[in-house]
């Protein structure tokens, strides 16, 4: 009897805790779908957020609100003062950084979001080229919800492997790994559209440079983050052997569709350091201009060699460029750390070594098929 009463009380005791839980009723929330950080004009931090609100009177609408304050939480409070609904970040999909801010330091922002338990770790990060407020507050003709639009834009391109992926999780990992630097897609407002205009390279948590979006393929290839996708390259005159065709043009644009790619990275000399990078690509040619006779095995062999040569030169170029700005986005440092016993690698140490790093690139390009696809 006593025992039973004890359990009965134990069972009903938790019901006292009913009021302790904070409720977030969906229709009373303003859902932030996108937030952009930039350097403020008056205060330290300017925040622009796209907030989806649902009103019974109208269809749901998207508010873009810019506030300035010292911290992101302070900005949220300021935003709250302008809205009839409680601002929450649990449905956030994209975090943008102004270029100016990115060049300053973004570690604080990444930390703050990693520590916030209601922010998903799969939100996309990107850098905005130009004015943040202009990009977000502009009323586009064909874009209804700018937050949703940028999310879809990034998602679509990342899934198609046209752009490198920088989610909060990946960036957080890369930021705290000794032999690696972070990178992010760059987006830009171009008249009435928003487009991906390149890749931002970071040294530690400061943006140091950018490379064009066409180089995404090489970056992904080197970092072994590429699986399948379409890519285009232009064979320069020096790549093209004379025996390929009769009237050799100055350049041959060529598009191919990678079926399978494999990268092998080997540290051959830890002192310099020196790496051997072997890339194997199996692909099919989707477009080539002018017409090359791909039915002839000899021609195909020549073409394969030409493309291999071209690709290895391009890869070397991208590596050399990133070395010149001191940003190791390919994680060579991680390979170094895992190959050299007791290296005790830190970011500083690696950046010292990275400048003088040597990479021997070897590309093995195989054409599996050509002709009718898709």
């Amino acid at each position, binding site marked *: 009897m006593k025992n039973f009463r004890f359990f009965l009380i134990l069972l009903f005791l938790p019901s006292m805790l009913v009021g302790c839980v904070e409720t977030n009723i*969906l*229709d009373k929330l303003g859902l932030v779908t996108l937030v952009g950080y930039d350097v403020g004009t008056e205060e330290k931090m300017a925040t622009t957020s796209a907030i*989806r609100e*649902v009103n*019974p009177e109208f*269809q*749901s609408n998207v508010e873009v609100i810019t506030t300035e304050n010292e911290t992101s939480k302070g900005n949220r409070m300021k935003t709250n003062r302008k809205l009839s609904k409680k601002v929450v970040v649990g*449905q956030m999909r994209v975090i943008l950084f102004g270029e100016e801010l990115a060049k300053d330091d973004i570690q604080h922002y990444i930390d703050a979001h990693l520590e916030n338990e209601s922010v998903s770790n799969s939100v996309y990060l990107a850098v905005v080229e130009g004015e943040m407020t202009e990009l977000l507050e502009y009323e586009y003709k064909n874009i209804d919800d700018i937050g949703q639009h940028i999310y879809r834009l990034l998602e679509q391109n990342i899934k198609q492997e046209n752009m490198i992926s920088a989610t909060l999780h990946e960036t957080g990992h890369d930021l705290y790994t000794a032999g690696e630097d972070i990178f992010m897609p760059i987006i830009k407002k171009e008249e009435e559209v928003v487009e991906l205009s390149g890749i931002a390279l970071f040294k530690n948590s400061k943006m140091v440079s950018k490379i064009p979006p066409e180089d995404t393929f090489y970056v992904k290839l080197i970092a072994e983050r590429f699986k399948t996708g379409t890519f285009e390259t232009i064979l320069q005159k020096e790549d093209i052997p004379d025996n390929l065709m009769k009237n050799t043009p100055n350049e041959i644009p060529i598009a191919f569709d990678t079926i399978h790619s494999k990268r092998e990275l080997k540290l051959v000399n830890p002192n310099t350091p020196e790496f051997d990078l072997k890339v194997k690509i199996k692909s099919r040619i989707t477009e080539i201009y002018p017409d090359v006779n791909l039915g002839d095995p000899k021609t195909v062999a020549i073409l394969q060699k030409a493309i291999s040569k071209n690709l290895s030169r391009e890869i070397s170029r991208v590596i050399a460029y990133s070395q010149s700005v001191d940003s190791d986005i390919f994680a060579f440092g991680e390979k170094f750390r895992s190959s050299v016993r007791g290296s005790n690698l830190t970011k500083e140490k690696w950046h010292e070594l990275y400048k003088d790093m040597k990479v021997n690139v070897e590309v093995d390009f195989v054409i599996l098929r050509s002709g009718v696809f898709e």
Partner: protein
Amino acid sequence: MKFKLPFNKKNETPVEIGAPRKDIGMLNPLKNDFVQSIKDATHNPADLIIKDIPPNHLTLIYINNLVDDVTLNDHIISNLQDKPNDTPEVIKATLSIPEINTSTRLEMAIKSLVNGSVLIHLEGYSQVIMANIPKRESRNLSTPENESQVLGAQVGFNESLSTNISLIRRYIVSPDLCNEKFTVGRRTNITVALLYINGIADDQMINTLRQRITDLNIDALLDSAVLAEMIDDNSMSVFPQMLLTERPDRFCDGLLNGKLGIVVDGSSMAIVCPQTFIEFFQSREDQNLRWQLATFARLLRFTAILLSVFLTPIYVGALTFHYEVIPQAFLVPLSESRALVPFPPVIEALLLEFIIELLREAGARLPTKIGQTIGIVGGIVIGTAAVQAGITSNILLIFVALSALASFTTPSYIMGNVIRLIRFPIIILAGYWGFYGIMLAFCFILIHLLRQSSLGAPYMSPFYPPRLKSMADTIIRLPLSLTSKRPEVTRPSDQEKFNPEPVKPDKS
């Protein structure tokens, strides 16, 4: 401050309730005294017929509505008239009635009289002849209405014990089918039959059940559902531990798997026990379908049950606390349909669930002729109007209707009701603490289920205690060739159902 609880019976002393009828004694050989004593004992009912037959001062006493008129005329009155019936032995030999007894005790005579006997008294003898010719009123056999199935026998039990037992005996033609009779209820004296197959059913279980029935000290029993609740292992639990079925094939399937069955006179539902939780969601029809189809049906049913219990609570939890988990594509339609609703999600959900339950209850109580109106009122008027008036959201309406529909896929009506009932506390907990509340409720229910037993057999078997071999034939239906063993939960004396070797020769 100690309060008394109904389910702590340990220290209570059993209350002795005196029998309402006293032992009146021996019968009187004199006719007038005999008739008077019968009248006194039966309180002289209006339908008590006392009839004299010449020439030997024979007296016939019977209750008009209890005896079969045709038999009475053809086999008793015509046989006794104008014959020199000197002694009770002669009369007993004369009558062409199968069940005929003699007694000198008044108590026996009265008991026989109310069971549908004709008492024949001969002047000067204290012996009375009891010719049992009861009128058996019962409806015709019909299809089982609460447990209909597409493939399989279309016959259900009716309210007559003898019809029901004959149905069972047709399914199991075997001398091993045991039938024990009990009389339950001091005032109603209802016959209860315990059936099992000797050689399959476990002796210990038979003894337990036999003891539970004989130990019953109740004054009336009107339906087998009441009996099932009384002899359950835990009558306080919301989950039934014995199956009530009106299908003879399901009943016999149970007997053949080593279960015990109880049939109650006057009730169209039979009890099958021991029954595990998972078996409530299996239908007899599963055996009649090809195993792939039956597996699909079973998986559908289990999904339906999970949906039925958890869909509305998840809606409430997600919309009240965890907006993060809502998929992005769902976000806008969900919040737009909620925008006009003035209540928090938990009130909205409870309201709608209440309306659905109201419709179901009204549908069950309404006379059949106006039952159709409920469909129209429920479906069109309440559903559409509630959304337009902004009391509920469209999406919740779909969820609630779906979970109500899903709960009806349970082959056991009682279990279906339980599934609908346990949703309410879970919705309330989801409204209090969100997904943590749902988890709390789930754990509570799971622990409760694990603690139950059915006739001493574990209720959650074969999952707990884990019995790997029996587990295969629960959520999916195995091909028949792989189910040659009886489930272990009944502890059958004979494990093998058949030889697992294939009958047909191997293809070469």
